[in-house]
């Protein structure tokens, strides 16, 4: 217990002293046997008083101070700093709010305000008596990051991290980097070519000494906590022995490979072999064998000595300070029959349509038929009436409108008909919508009645109740129906389990708070960026991952992490391991350990945020929060409860 306490009662000009008899407060404080010195002061926060306090602490060897002044929100840090400058632990400083919560709140009754101030100061003195000196907890942090997913979002983040001095391991599950954008080819709003974007980033990455890029790589385990994660990565082989040469033989090997199947990159519009070369916009320029399809017939190995079908997976263990998840999203796959998908041949998704545009020359041909009239049906797989995807998928309106511009540019004779649910080309993207209107695209809008699709003699018929023309039912003959399909969360149970990622209502990964902590997850040191969090366009994804970089650098850039010392502590001798605290802890900060042969709970200091949620649920009262221990709180209650007979009506 501390028993050399200094008390300062601030007048705050007249803000306090007009209503509170500060001299009376000082007198009563001075009566406390542990109070060595009690003063009143005009402005406690002024420079001269600060110096005086420092002098007092030193001369009188004070071991705690109490300042009764304004709200701690204004000057807690000022006075903690004063304590520190005098060589006193800042946590042995107690601020008592006698302005906002006393003199001002009770300016209508100075007598009561004085009585209340006396009690508040008494309670403050008791809190100071029981205060403990605390040091910030420092934990060592690896100055290195793991970025999961090498789409645009992850690549950009990796580069920014590396260029600000952080060592980065960038892993990509596929054998090529670039994510989905290569399939889109030309990107809204300015028609940037995807290939150029990916190439720029890829080339910067491979020459950057701070980045280790692994393709065909997945996270398989994670242990440790913020600043000190230990991660294991599994790397699939490409089944090529050596380096970077793309030998002549590869072409021949691909030609002679007997295994041929629908190329997922082109949504089955073309075929691909088990030995594959990258598509335009995918990097590295290096072939790979898809072992899930390869029959190991050995024909290719005879052609290319570089091929080794017996290559094994490798595992890698790394120490990592922080993790960024940039795993992106998937496109919604309509079930068979939704708007005729999979049943009527001329119904395809927007993603497939983009490949079709690229693969066609002067005329747009699908299913051996020249396409002249296209209907785009919006909000497929998003804003569902009954389905589970209630959310708006944000990027698709603009993507569809942009597609219609590309179509018109390449195939001017084509008529674009948009069946929307309200076009959401927000912000500057509105200009694309304006352009689409200018090129005489037709816009119809449906509401709660989805369009009906049927087929007769190779012609598709759409019936739509158009709310823009007094809910008239309009019939359209169409050559091709493009379903504007949404972004859906990627199915990645393993990753979610490994990282214990919180999933939101919309099944995307959840941030802690959309404004306060928009790229942070509840797991300290694990960040999210881009489409794994929510549908967004490229620019927005990059912004979010760059935001995450800034938070990651602030966290691990100094090589150590400073934590507030007001954390929970568990008295293991009385813990009975009921599991209640682990269930309620929002920060995954309680771990199971052993004490005298029995299972008990223990606080993981790196994760504990000091919220105290675990305190009330402990059946044996084994948990104390530093700074808010039973003795501190109860001694304050005692002082405040001491009855003052003058408080009467």
């Amino acid at each position, binding site marked *: 217990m501390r028993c050399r306490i200094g008390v300062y009662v601030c007048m705050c000009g*007249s803000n306090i002293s007009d209503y509170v008899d500060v001299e009376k407060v000082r007198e009563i404080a001075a009566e406390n046997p542990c109070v060595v010195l009690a003063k009143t002061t005009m*402005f406690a926060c002024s420079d001269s008083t600060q110096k005086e306090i420092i002098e007092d602490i030193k001369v009188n060897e004070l071991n705690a101070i109490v300042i009764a002044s304004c709200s701690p929100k204004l000057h807690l840090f000022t006075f903690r700093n004063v304590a520190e400058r005098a060589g006193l632990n800042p946590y042995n400083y107690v601020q008592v709010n006698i302005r906002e919560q006393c003199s001002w709140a009770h300016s209508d009754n100075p007598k009561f305000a004085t009585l209340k101030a006396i009690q508040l100061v008494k309670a403050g003195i008791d809190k100071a008596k029981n205060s403990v000196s605390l040091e910030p907890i420092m934990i060592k942090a690896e100055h290195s990051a793991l970025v999961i997913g090498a789409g645009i979002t992850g690549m950009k983040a990796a580069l920014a991290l590396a260029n*600000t001095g952080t060592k980065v391991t960038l892993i990509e599950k596929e054998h090529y980097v670039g994510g989905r954008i290569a399939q889109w080819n030309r990107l809204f709003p300015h028609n940037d070519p995807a290939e150029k974007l990916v190439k720029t980033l890829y080339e910067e990455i491979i020459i950057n000494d701070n980045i280790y890029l692994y393709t065909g790589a997945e996270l398989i385990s994670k242990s440790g906590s913020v600043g000190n994660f230990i991660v294991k990565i599994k790397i699939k082989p490409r089944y090529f022995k050596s380096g970077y040469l793309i030998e002549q033989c590869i072409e021949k090997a691909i030609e002679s490979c007997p295994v041929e199947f629908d190329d997922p990159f082109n949504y089955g519009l073309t075929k691909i072999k088990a030995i594959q070369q990258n598509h335009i916009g995918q990097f590295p320029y290096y072939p790979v064998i898809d072992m899930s399809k390869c029959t190991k017939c050995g024909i290719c190995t005879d052609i290319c000595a570089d091929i080794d079908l017996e290559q094994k997976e490798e595992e890698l263990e790394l120490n990592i300070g922080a993790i960024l998840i940039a795993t992106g999203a998937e496109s919604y796959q309509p079930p068979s029959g939704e708007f005729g998908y999979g049943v009527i041949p001329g119904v395809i998704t927007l993603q497939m349509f983009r490949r079709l545009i690229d693969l066609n020359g002067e005329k747009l041909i699908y299913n051996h038929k020249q396409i002249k009239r296209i209907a785009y049906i919006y909000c497929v797989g998003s804003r569902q009436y009954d389905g589970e995807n209630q959310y708006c998928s944000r990027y698709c309106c603009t993507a569809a409108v942009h597609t219609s511009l590309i179509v018109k540019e390449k195939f001017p004779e084509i008529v674009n008909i948009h069946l929307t649910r309200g076009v959401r080309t927000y912000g500057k993207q509105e200009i694309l919508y304006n352009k689409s209107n200018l090129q005489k695209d037709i816009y119809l809008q449906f509401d709660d009645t989805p369009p009906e699709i049927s087929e007769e003699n190779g012609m598709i018929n759409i019936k739509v109740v158009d709310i823009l023309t007094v809910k008239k039912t309009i019939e359209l003959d169409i050559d091709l129906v493009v379903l504007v399909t949404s972004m859906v969360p990627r199915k990645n149970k393993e990753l979610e389990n490994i990282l214990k990622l919180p999933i*939101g209502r919309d099944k995307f990964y959840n941030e802690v708070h959309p*404004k306060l902590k*928009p*790229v942070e997850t509840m797991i300290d040191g694990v960040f999210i960026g881009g489409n794994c969090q929510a549908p967004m366009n490229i620019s927005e994804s990059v912004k*979010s991952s*760059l*935001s995450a970089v800034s938070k990651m650098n602030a966290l691990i850039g100094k090589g150590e992490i400073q934590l507030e010392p007001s954390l929970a502590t568990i008295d293991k001798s009385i813990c009975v391991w009921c599991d209640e605290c682990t269930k309620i802890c929002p920060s995954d900060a309680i771990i199971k350990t052993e004490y005298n042969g029995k299972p008990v709970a223990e606080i993981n200091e790196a994760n504990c945020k000091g919220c105290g949620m675990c305190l009330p649920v402990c059946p044996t009262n084994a948990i104390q929060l530093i700074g808010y221990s039973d003795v501190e709180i109860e001694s304050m209650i005692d002082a405040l409860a001491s009855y003052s007979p003058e408080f009467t009506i």
Partner: protein
Amino acid sequence: MAYNYSNINDYDVLVIGGGIAGIEAALNLAYQGYKVILVEKDLSIGGKMIHLSKVFPTLDCAACITTPKVSETARHPNIKIYTYSEIKDIEKLGERYFTATLVQKPRYVTDACTGCQLCEEKCPVVVEDEYQWGLVGRKAAYIPFSIANPRIAAIDIENCTFCGLCEKVCAAGAIDFTQEEKRSTIVVKSIIIATGFNLFQSERLSYYGAGKFKNLLTSMQMERQLVPTRPYNNVLRPKDGKVPDRIAYVLCVGSRDKSLGNPICSQVCCMYSIKQAQLLMGALPMADVTIYYIDIRAFGKGFDEFYKQGVGMGVNFVKGKIANISEKENGDLILRYEDIDSGVLKEATHDLVVLSVGILTNPDFEKLFKTTPLLKDDYGYVRQVSELLSPSKTSIDGVFVAGTASGPMDIPDSILSAGAASTEASVYMKGGAS
């Protein structure tokens, strides 16, 4: 011109604008160890966000989010804030530095001010309170608003009568009428433009009668009626102080309108109108709220769900553009619009109408640079030279843009944009290409 090189290491980054984007960028950089100078032209930091009621789609109270960030900024050892100050004459100094002139306008109150408001109490001058969007009055000696930071008074010298009462009553001796504008030169390595946006001035639309009809409010005025610290502690009609019960929202006021030179969508008005409608239904359970819209753009995370929540609460959504508004004798307003549902011209009477005004560029950034101008885009916003790969890059190397200075966006997007700007500034200062 000779520069004072002694202060070359005082700051690394200049952040212009102390709204939510500027604050976020400054904090991000400060936590990474950079020295930041944050310059705000207003008397307090916090921008427009600090004045909002609750924010969509979570309905958190805006102050609950802004004030902790504001005080974190104010006490961060790596951030120096200049409020009521402006930046001028930015120029490149060699390859890696910029110089700029910092102009500190006099507020006639020194840092000794404790925010006690005694001067405000005694000041005899009452003028319109711009922080309450003209809904109520304020004094000439005043604290800008209750949660202002710094909580230091200012003297509105234009309206001051120099009666000297404030000086007499101030125990801290903080009133100083001798203050003058101060100019100094600062040197920094990188600059973040976070100058925010301007609201569309609805008075430009004579056919809506804004500025003429009393019961026609802008959405920002309604916002102030909905904050817990609101001036009337209730939602009232300005004309007669009656509690309204048929409230209308007119969307796309000043946005998506080529004739006004603003063809783009403001990105936030649909959502803030739905939010206000929900808050109104809470504050005035008996009131009918109708939103007249062209398209509802509820695109962000949780937005469409929030829109549906509004529908579920009974907010009436009518698809149709308002052609004009006229006033009845009792102050009620008649809205004429083409009802898309029925295809006919209709009229509706409301006793309070809110114009959901759009976002326009704040052209202040154009005046910041001395020789090489910062390029703007077709809509007057700071031009993003690499929108997809480096969204905060501008036409000047080392100058980055954060928040609505680059285009309309909501608060979460502004915060992310500020995050990107701080990262790109950091990459730039480390000498790396980004």
